[in-house]
């Protein structure tokens, strides 16, 4: 894929910010999604190491080689571009950095928007150029 520079009008980084802690728990961190501006709590039931917005699936380029290493200085916006299925059947989201072109693969989370995931899953099939005869032979 050609690496292209996408000029962004909004360069505010998706930084963690502190929310008022009402329950005195450790669940105080949240980030604002660079895609839809939703305030997303970092932790949620059934969700470990959240790395994308559960509403619009957008992520931020902070990891370099290993998920969670936080070693990238790019901080570009990463859009979900596809889904893959692990051998154990789990869906994985493929993210693509609009700044530097890098790809990453991430587990879906328990509270990801099912409709957004499903739209991603049907995207190749909504292409009118897909030959129907190929579909029929599957």
């Amino acid at each position, binding site marked *: 894929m050609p690496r292209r520079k996408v000029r962004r009008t909004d360069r505010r980084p998706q930084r963690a910010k502190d929310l008022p802690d009402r329950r005195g728990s450790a669940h105080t961190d949240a980030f604002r999604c660079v895609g839809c501006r939703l305030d997303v709590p970092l932790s949620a039931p059934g969700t470990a190491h959240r790395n994308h917005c559960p509403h619009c699936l957008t992520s931020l380029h902070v990891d370099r080689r290993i998920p969670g290493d936080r070693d990238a200085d790019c901080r570009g916006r990463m859009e979900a*571009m596809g889904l893959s*299925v692990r051998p154990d059947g789990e869906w994985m989201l493929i993210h693509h950095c609009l700044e530097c072109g890098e790809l990453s693969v991430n587990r879906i989370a328990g509270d990801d928007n099912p409709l957004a995931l499903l739209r991603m*899953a049907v995207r190749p099939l909504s292409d009118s150029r897909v030959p129907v005869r190929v579909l029929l032979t*599957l």
Partner: protein
Amino acid sequence: MSTTNSSSSSNPSGFLRTETFTCVWCGLAVTALTPDGHRRNHCPSCLHSCHVLDQVDGGPSECQSRMTPISIAVLRNGDWMVIHRCVRCDELTANRAQVDDNQLILMRLAVRPLAQPPFPLEAFGAL
């Protein structure tokens, strides 16, 4: 694509139509160019590739391991991309699907998520 054999060395700078490579997975001898003149990065028969470029730092990669096709992604212009993952180092690449790529394998990759949904699809009705 592990080995590159050129049937002629008279034109070192230009890309020869006769140049071929052998697929690291299925062993097929493949022309390096597609019928419409694009340079291949994966085998048109099994869609496997070889890790020859470093995606993070750019330039050639020393990995040279096999890359398996794991997903189909669609660009805004409708073009299909084949997402590959290296079996040794897990690096990812995206490359355009080519005109003579195996349509059955492309479709199988494309429908795989829908065949194994993490939630019941019936709840959605018409999309």
